[in-house]
């Protein structure tokens, strides 16, 4: 078994409650006390146009600042600091848009699997729709990230229409692009697991990239792995944690840590190399 550190014992205890941890964080992002702290960027994907949002969306701020040609120190600093600490753990446990997709995935419909390589599109969205297009064409361009963002469509456009309908005001329908995005997102949420996170999320691209360098990381104890491939069955993303536990496409739901031999676990960079490496080091010293 992987060395049962305090951290891994904690992970094993909390793992069955992941959805409730996500719900707990939702209360922070939805601002139950009507706080609108929009001069602070939250480290999650949550549209600041949402009537209940507490913090500013870092991706929206990066794009808006690119459009006015100003470096977004605050947004990039927040994402870099949080990502370098936790990697994509934020996606799996904290992000409200991830929770929404997880709930959608619970609907018992046959799910289609997306290949892992589709995760590279996230970098295209990050570089193109968040930085290059806003910088070159401003925020009016149809491919500006906020104009194609499903979080904005679901969290702003839909509540607006509902509010207008409930209060008896004239309903102002969102444009065709927004309606198409909402419909496509809802359908995709039911037929595949976390479609936005896997294929298009620019924030997930940053956190996923930082998986390899984060203080908190996944560790595979090679000498304990029996190659039973159970971790691959447990991975809803179709990943291969036994091959690359810190893959950029991993959202760190930590389900793979439930593998039978217990070869996979959570670790920090301060814990040093895994056991066989220590043996090799000792041999090197002896020689």
């Amino acid at each position, binding site marked *: 078994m992987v060395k049962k550190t305090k951290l891994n014992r904690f992970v094993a205890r909390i793992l069955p409650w992941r959805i409730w941890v996500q719900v707990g964080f939702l209360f922070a992002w939805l601002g139950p006390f009507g706080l609108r702290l929009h001069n602070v960027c939250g480290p999650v994907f949550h549209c600041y*146009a949402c009537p209940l949002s507490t913090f*500013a969306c870092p991706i929206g701020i990066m794009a808006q600042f690119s459009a006015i040609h100003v470096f977004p120190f605050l947004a990039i600093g927040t994402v870099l600091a949080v990502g*370098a600490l936790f990697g994509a753990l934020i996606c799996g446990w904290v992000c409200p848009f991830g929770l929404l997709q997880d709930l959608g995935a619970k609907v018992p419909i046959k799910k289609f699997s997306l290949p892992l390589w589709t995760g590279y599109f996230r970098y295209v969205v990050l570089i193109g729709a968040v930085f290059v297009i806003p910088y070159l064409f401003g925020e009016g361009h149809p491919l500006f990230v906020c104009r194609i963002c499903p979080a904005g469509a679901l969290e702003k456009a839909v509540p607006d229409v509902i509010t207008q309908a409930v209060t008896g005001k004239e309903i102002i329908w969102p444009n065709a692009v927004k309606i198409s995005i909402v419909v496509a997102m809802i359908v995709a949420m039911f037929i595949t697991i976390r479609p936005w996170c896997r294929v298009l999320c620019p924030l997930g691209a940053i956190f996923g990239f930082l998986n390899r360098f984060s203080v908190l990381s996944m560790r595979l104890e090679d000498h304990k792995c029996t190659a039973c491939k159970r971790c691959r069955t447990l991975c809803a993303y179709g990943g291969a944690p036994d091959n690359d536990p810190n893959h950029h496409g991993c959202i760190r739901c930590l389900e793979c840590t439930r593998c039978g031999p217990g070869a996979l676990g959570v670790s920090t960079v301060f814990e040093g190399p895994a056991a066989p490496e220590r043996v090799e080091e000792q041999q090197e010293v002896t020689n």
Partner: protein
Amino acid sequence: MAQSRRKTLVSITLVLLGVGLLAYGVAFHVINVHPKEDGAAAIETREPDAVRQASVGGLERDESGSVKQTYTGESPKACAT
């Protein structure tokens, strides 16, 4: 061991870089924002305040390259997007 130490160093450097950027943005970074009225003097705006204005779609870049508010008087409540 060397690889492990290198990874630790990279991780800590990235965290410190992020905290440094965040601290600089909060404490020192100032943006010159011009009010919507033509000819009005630019206001030195701290980045957190600029973030708040950007989050409601309140900032744009004009043809001369300067950052300009998109509204006069009270800021919009939410971004139109």
